[in-house]
């Protein structure tokens, strides 16, 4: 075969091999190109919504906007949660810009004690996407998105698939364009989150000034007829007890001030939901929780 034909044939041969492999191999658990696209879109889109879900990873894994709209289908919704989000001025300003300027508007704000700690207020996860330069953002929004059709394969996943090996560990994260992350972990361990959280609160307890600033923001938004609905994202009883004892955050005092500033507080029963690690909801529970949340906010959207 001459070099000319080699140049002509190598691409079609690669395409055939690639297509055959794609048919034969299992779909990878993680599509990181699409993951990056989802985070960048969440951060840099200027689209405005009637319903926002804000807070930390318990929110972006626990509130699925699709189910919020089950009974509120005439509206649009997005999840603006990030890992270890703190209610800093910067984050609240980002949220304020994403709510519609007119009409019925609801902000669902997940309140965890960690959200008011100095470490959370750094908002490193949010900033890692916010601080990307225009070129990076453009690349991720308009170029990387095409990579979602070409996920990265892991030899281990392929090995497990073809050898029928029993899976001993799996951390599944499926990123959605609406900001929700469908997530679960195998094996379940409802105490796994306790150790890191215990460490998280060492020399890092709730900051009163940050709480005050958040409550002022609630007042400001309520005055603009935006309904701020606060709630404690469901986790486990052990986690709630740990947070209450170590965080320095007083829920009852917070809730009364929150209501005084115009916010609406909702409570949910822990036993209705399952957390896979003691902190985050299994995706089935997240859907159930979102459906309930959707029903509870229906009256505020009428």
């Amino acid at each position, binding site marked *: 075969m001459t070099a000319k034909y080699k140049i002509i044939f190598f691409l079609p041969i*690669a395409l055939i091999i690639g297509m055959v492999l794609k048919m034969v191999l299992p779909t990878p658990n993680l599509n990181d190109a699409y993951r990056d696209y989802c985070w960048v879109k969440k951060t840099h889109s200027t689209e405005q919504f009637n319903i926002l879900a804000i807070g930390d990873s318990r929110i972006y894994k626990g509130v699925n906007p699709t189910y919020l709209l089950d009974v509120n289908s005439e509206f649009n919704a997005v999840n603006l949660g990030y890992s270890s989000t703190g209610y800093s001025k910067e984050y609240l300003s980002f949220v304020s810009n994403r709510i519609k300027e007119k009409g019925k508007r609801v902000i669902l704000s997940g309140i965890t004690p960690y959200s008011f700690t100095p470490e959370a207020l750094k908002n490193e996860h949010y900033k890692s996407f916010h601080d990307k330069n225009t070129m990076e953002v453009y690349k991720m929004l308009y170029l990387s998105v095409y990579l979602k059709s070409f996920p990265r394969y892991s030899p281990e996943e392929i090995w497990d698939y073809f050898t029928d090996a029993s899976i001993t560990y799996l951390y599944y994260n499926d990123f959605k364009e609406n900001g929700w992350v469908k997530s679960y972990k195998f094996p379940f361990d409802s105490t796994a989150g306790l150790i890191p959280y215990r460490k998280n609160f060492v020399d890092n307890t709730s900051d009163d000034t940050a709480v005050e600033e958040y409550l002022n923001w609630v007042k400001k938004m309520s005055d603009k007829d935006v309904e701020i609905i606060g709630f404690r994202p469901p986790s486990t009883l052990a986690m709630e007890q740990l947070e209450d004892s170590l965080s320095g955050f007083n829920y009852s005092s917070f809730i009364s001030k929150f209501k005084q500033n115009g916010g609406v507080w909702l409570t949910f029963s822990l036993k209705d939901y399952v957390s896979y690690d003691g902190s985050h909801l299994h995706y089935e529970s997240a859907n159930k929780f979102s459906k309930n949340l959707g029903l509870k906010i229906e009256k505020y959207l009428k």
Partner: protein
Amino acid sequence: MVFNSLEFLFFGLLFFLLWPLFKKKDTSRWLYLVSASFLFYGWWDWRFIFLIIGSGLIDYFSGLWIEKFPKYRKYSLILSLIGNLGSLSIFKYSLFFATSLDSLLLKFGVHSNLANNIPEFALILPVGISFYTFQSLSYTIDIYRGRLKPTKNLLHFFSYLSMFPQLVAGPIVRAKDLLKQLTKVPSVNSLQVWHGIKLIVFGLFQKVVIADNLSLFIDSAFSGSKYYEGPAYWWFVMVAFAFQIYCDFSGYSLIARGLAKTMGYHFKMNFNHPYLSSSLKEFWGRWHISLSTWFRDYVYIPLGGARRGIYFGLLFLWVTMLLSGLWHGANITFVIWGAMHALFLTLERFYAKVKFFSRIPKGLLILITFIQAVVAWVFFRAESFDQSITVLKSMFMFQSSDFKFLTTYFDAMIFLGTAIIIELVILFKRYKISVQSVYQRYNLDVLFISIALVAIVMFRGEGQQFIYFQF
């Protein structure tokens, strides 16, 4: 801009689309090459284009003056040396020298605090500075030695100095090899294009599939997490690093050569399967060839080389290796890495005289050489001298090993195995001519390149910068 990025894919496609339009006339060809190269470099930080222009102008004029004023040629060369080594010292070594001096003076009770007074701009390491300054230096030194005629055309000079395939991480192309090529209209036939494609695809495979997939395993080991310990674990980590750095850098060089070949230019081979060497002397003839020959031609031989007897020869060898270590990074660990190689090379010169060692089977010699390289890599990779010692102790302590890391890093082990198998196949191919002929008869290169391309897409690691960018 890095070769394994989407930006480069578009840049490369656009460049090669327009290349035939510009390549026919000298001026348009050079202008196009220089503009594209500055765009390529400026994508990282456009401000440092001026550094290349600045040091390039010094060398361009130094070259002209050496020829025009032969009586003062030494001063022109000194100007070039000051320009290049000066910018290298400021941007790469100022912090290292300042902290070293601070700690030295502190021993005499003097608090100098030089490190904190370095201007902020000098703390940024311009990408590829070590490569293009060495390339530029070779130009003026060769003119000084009468081995090269300076170019009178500034665009011609800058198209040599800044040519994007090799600008940021080599190979360090000599002016005498490339300047002449750049004066001709490059013609490319389909065989050259096919060779270019093969080099680019295999280079990307080495970088994206092997090196990037090994990085998680190695980085977590050196992050100090201490999840795993024991000699077996650290030997695996270091062997993985040996292949990561090889595939990362060799991959870059192959892509650079492939791009040049597709444009119609020829860069010499920079890596020739170094881990198949049966001595460290051979290793240095196969590893980063453009740098090792640079040090040989511009440091070792001018010092006196082997001509002044065995002991002076060894002294010059040590000087060259220590400088080579320092070239890689402004840290004592890199200098020790150079010293380790100098030590092993010294021992090798003595062993060569003992008859017993000539009877050792070649396979065993290859293994011994590889182990020496792996041990030296510890200093190259470790974050500090203390960490190097800890890792070396772990590697050579006789204690039980926990092999759980093999399942945790299953993917990394698969890619490490792939890299080793590829090298073994090359070794096998080298001695079994029949394999070579089967390979050619059935055009297996088309199949292998197609498979490599599929692997690049489906088994790519998390995008990483090329390791050698930091040098």
